[in-house]
């Protein structure tokens, strides 16, 4: 058995970088921090690749892969079984995620050297990036659900920091806050789910929970609340956490706003890594879902399906290129959820699982690429809005080509990576759930439409009068894009069904022509529609939008979900609960306490007449007191 202990270094290097640059960075030239961060992550990146190679190829055995836990330290112990460890767990999905995270992060690091050059807080930026990478790697490598929760929270916090990087911009601050609080709310569910699950099973450890045929779940399936079994509750709540991080409807509202962060951050966090953490979580717990809470799995599929369609529709109407990409991300993650939702366990039945992971991988490549491309454009144009762009293909050839590759990949056009993964998902859905299949099928068409709407609007169309003549981005920005373009183009040829499967045993997978041909077709239709509407400047799109009326407007306003949230938080929670409580506390509760004092004082003034200064009144009180006391005593002692 190969010793994988060195894997622990992969997260620890970014942590070290974070601590060093965070504490000392201010004293250095900005670039030093950037270089340290990039080099550090480079090492992590290569270590990950090496680990992946070792895991998948060097130690592969005929019976599939095994879960390896090279490091596991006790961190906190509640009882002899209920313990939190900090460790490293290697299995196909974690190794795959390791590669994804370090790759994208490494690319983002290199890219940012150019993109963020000269920004105030350059060091801080790199420190945060390292922190984020560390946390994300922690999530990926967790050996138990609590460790995962810990890093899950850290991911949320570092995401908060990165979204709010431009902290003097109120909108960025608001977005960061929103992201944190919404995901925190979702994590509440996650936490409660963990607590319920761990109470009944008595453990946090994945390896124990995943053991086939384990009796740990006897207790939790036995109990029920409101007619729903304990395990269903727990797993639904855990999915709530996943839905929060992965921005599933209705917890998706934070993601579009999160685009306020620097673009490389969007690429890293909000396209490739953090947002898929939810998918990863579901995949991680997949056996539990499958064997103990199949209902929840179906629910997950529907949530994913709805989100993917819903987000894709919104994406068609947005004008901010990053927002379009953000909704596109939502939609694609929905795909992954659908894949997991429709998946079975083991062999062919587990196709959905493999497909979901596969799509996670390819999506990371092409979506990160899209974001980096967008960043490259924004860097040049200094605007996020489509109307400020046009005909950029002339000025930015490399960006153009890589962006096109990514667009084709997301549209599912062979032989680009997206085609393979999306095709597998559709196949899996086709076999398991026809409704979801059709939803996803339509979404695929919408996807290619909105992405090419974006593409044509940016790179074709009219030649806007630019203030500064646009130019291709510097080398350190272009190289990551090229690298990712290669991934987006050829990533689809990786044989995922041999590597990442639900039961860690490879199975044979073949292209289902019946599914793939229509899917390519609808992708092409979408592209064609976009070509017609946006290739040349015309008002066709506006006319269509007008004709749709309310439908268009509500889509443009993202179906007013944000407003609904705002109403609930501002009007109901803040003004309806918090403010009355503040009032209640200071006026009623505190008022009561003060009232005791006031009343005492009042009594004191009321009875002051007793001390009238009159000699004879004193005598009267004296005698009256005596007599009353005597009568009282005679009465109480029984002489009446």
């Amino acid at each position, binding site marked *: 058995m190969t010793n994988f202990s060195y894997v622990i270094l992969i997260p620890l290097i970014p942590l070290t970088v974070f601590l060093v640059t965070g504490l000392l960075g201010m004293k250095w030239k900005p670039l030093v921090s950037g270089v340290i961060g990039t080099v550090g992550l480079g090492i992590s990146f290569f270590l990950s690749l090496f680990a992946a190679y070792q895991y998948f190829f060097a130690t592969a055995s005929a019976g599939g892969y095994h879960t390896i836990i090279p490091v596991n330290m006790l961190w906190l112990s509640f009882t002899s079984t209920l313990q939190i460890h900090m460790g490293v767990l290697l299995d196909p999905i974690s190794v795959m995620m390791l590669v994804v995270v370090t790759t994208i992060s490494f690319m983002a690091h290199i890219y940012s050297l150019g993109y963020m050059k000269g920004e105030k807080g350059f060091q801080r930026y790199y420190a945060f990036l390292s922190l984020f990478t560390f946390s994300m790697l922690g999530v990926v490598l967790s050996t138990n659900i609590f460790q995962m929760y810990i890093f899950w929270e850290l991911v949320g916090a570092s995401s908060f920091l990165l979204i709010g990087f431009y902290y003097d911009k109120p909108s960025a601050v608001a977005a960061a806050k929103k992201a944190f609080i919404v995901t925190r709310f979702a994590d509440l569910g996650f936490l409660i789910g963990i607590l319920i699950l761990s109470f009944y099973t008595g453990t946090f450890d994945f390896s124990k929970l995943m053991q086939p045929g384990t009796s740990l779940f006897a207790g939790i399936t036995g109990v029920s609340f409101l007619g729903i079994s304990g395990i269903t509750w727990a797993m639904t709540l855990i999915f709530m956490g996943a839905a929060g991080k992965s921005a599933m409807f209705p917890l998706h509202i934070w993601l579009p706003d999160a685009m306020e962060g620097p673009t490389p951050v969007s690429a890293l966090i909000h396209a490739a890594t953090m947002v898929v953490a939810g998918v990863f979580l579901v995949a991680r717990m997949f056996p539990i879902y499958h064997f103990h809470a199949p209902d929840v799995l179906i629910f997950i599929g529907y949530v994913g399906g709805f989100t993917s369609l819903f987000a894709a529709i919104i994406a068609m109407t947005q004008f901010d290129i990053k927002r379009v990409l953000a909704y596109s991300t939502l939609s694609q993650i929905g795909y992954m959820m659908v894949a997991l939702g429709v998946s079975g366990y083991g062999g062919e039945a587990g196709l959905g699982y493999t497909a979901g992971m596969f799509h996670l991988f390819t999506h990371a490549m092409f979506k990160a690429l899209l974001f980096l491309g967008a960043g490259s454009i924004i860097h040049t144009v200094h605007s996020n809005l489509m109307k400020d762009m046009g005909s950029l293909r002339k000025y930015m050839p490399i960006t153009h080509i890589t962006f096109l590759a990514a667009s084709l990949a997301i549209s599912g056009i062979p032989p680009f990576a997206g085609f393979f993964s999306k095709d597998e998902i559709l196949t899996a859905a086709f076999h398991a759930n026809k409704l979801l299949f059709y939803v996803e099928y339509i979404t695929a068409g919408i996807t290619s439409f909105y992405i090419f709407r974006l593409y044509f609007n940016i790179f074709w169309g009219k030649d806007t009068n630019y203030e500064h003549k646009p130019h291709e981005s510097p080398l350190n920005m272009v190289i990551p894009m090229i690298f990712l373009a290669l991934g987006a183009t050829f990533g689809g040829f990786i044989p995922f069904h041999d590597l990442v499967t639900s039961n860690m045993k490879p199975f044979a997978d073949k292209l289902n022509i019946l599914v793939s041909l229509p899917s390519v077709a609808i992708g092409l239709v979408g592209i064609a529609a976009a070509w017609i509407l946006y290739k040349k400047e015309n008002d066709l799109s506006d006319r269509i939008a007008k004709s749709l009326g309310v439908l268009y407007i509500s889509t443009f306003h993202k179906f007013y979900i944000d407003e609904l949230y705002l109403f609930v938080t501002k009007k109901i929670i803040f003004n309806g609960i918090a403010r009355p409580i503040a009032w209640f506390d200071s006026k009623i509760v505190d008022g009561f306490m003060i009232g005791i004092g006031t009343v005492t*004082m009042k009594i004191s003034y009321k009875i002051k007449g007793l001390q009238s*200064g009159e000699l004879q009144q004193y005598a009267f009180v*004296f005698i009256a007191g005596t007599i009353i*006391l*005597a009568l*009282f*005593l*005679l009465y109480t*002692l029984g002489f009446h």
Partner: protein
Amino acid sequence: MDFKYILLMRHELLLLLVALIILMVDLFTSDKKKFRLIKFSLLLFTIATLVGFIPVKPGVLFGGAFQGNALTDFFKDILNVAVLIVFLQSDGYLKKIENTGKTGEFFVLIILTLLGMDFMVSSGDFLTFFIGLETASIPVAGLVAFDRFKSRSAEAGVKLILLSALSSGVLLFGISLIYGATGSIYFSDIAKHVTASPLIILGFIFFLSGMGFKISLVPFHLWTADVYEGAPINITAYLSVVSKGAAVFILTIILYKVFKNVTDLWETSLYVLAVLTMTVGNLFALRQDNIKRFLAFSSIAQAGFIMVGIMGTGSLGMTSVVYFILIYVFTNLGAFGVASAISSASGVETISGYNGLYSTNPRLSLIMMLALFSLAGIPPIAGFFGKFFLFTSAGSQGYFILILIGVLNATISLYYYLGVVKAMFINKSDTPIPYFRSSNFMRLSLLLCVAGLFSIGFIGGIFEYIMSISHLLF
């Protein structure tokens, strides 16, 4: 007849002697040299106090009319020390021109009342008790009216003597009923015959209201505030500590010894009185501005706490009461000492007048604060221990509701004690009392008080000693 007489009554005889000597010397001292009399009297009294500490075997005199034992001796010592402190504090007052001529009277009257109290403390029958009580209270009226030319002082004197006479009458009426029911005025004989008959109940209530007058229990307390306010501040101090202490002590003895067969009777009545006293005392104290009136009501409330302590019968009750009085001496005299120093230096006797005192007279303010905290029962100052044991004593008989009322009252009392602290430390004043240096005697007395406040609680031996000597009585 032997030497025993002299030794058992050494406190009383010495006081009588000192009083006579001072009276004589006073007669033959010209008005101009009267100020020397202060030091002379102090010296004599100190000697008398010190001699009082000599331990003597317990005994009984005059067929049981006079009882001397370790507890009474100890208590007389407490009274002596308290009076000594009062004397030390009176230095400034007596040195005022209008008072120097009366120096001798001041000492003689106080020492004679103390003599009465000593007899009262040692009494073994109601006659001795009554004579001691009257000896202790009639001259006090003179002392209260000491500032002859102040109408308030005169008013206080009249109020005191008339009401005191009334209360004596009532008290005597009670005693006469008890005599009628039991046929004896000796404590030990009465104890044997006491039953809860209506006559005894009536007699006891009349007796109790008479004593309640001396201790200022509500509703027999109304004279307190007026008399305290009108009297010269040192006399107020004397009244609030020594008179009250002695009365409490003998009341406790009588309750425990004479009425021990009818505990129901007196515990029920004291329960009511304690609750009333604490509550009403506190409620009145809340809005006082005159420091003497303020301390008057505070001392009423304190008397209520003592009543709570008395509820725990037996040696624990006795001990907690005596211990509390011991602490109360230092506490209250500390507070009165500061008030007296300020009064004689600047004439200010209001709490609002104390505003900003800390900025000019930090030490006095600190002592005042310590004394007030002690009254409020805040550790580690002695008052905390005193109050704690009073409550413990009541707890030993299971009076937890009473304790609850007591501690809640203590919390209310904290409000007004802190009010004075606030005036001195927090409030700002444009015209604070200017800095002054009080006389050496005053400083000595305050030093004694502070030392007592800090040490009594920590020296567990004091409490243990009282416990051991009161144990002998039961």
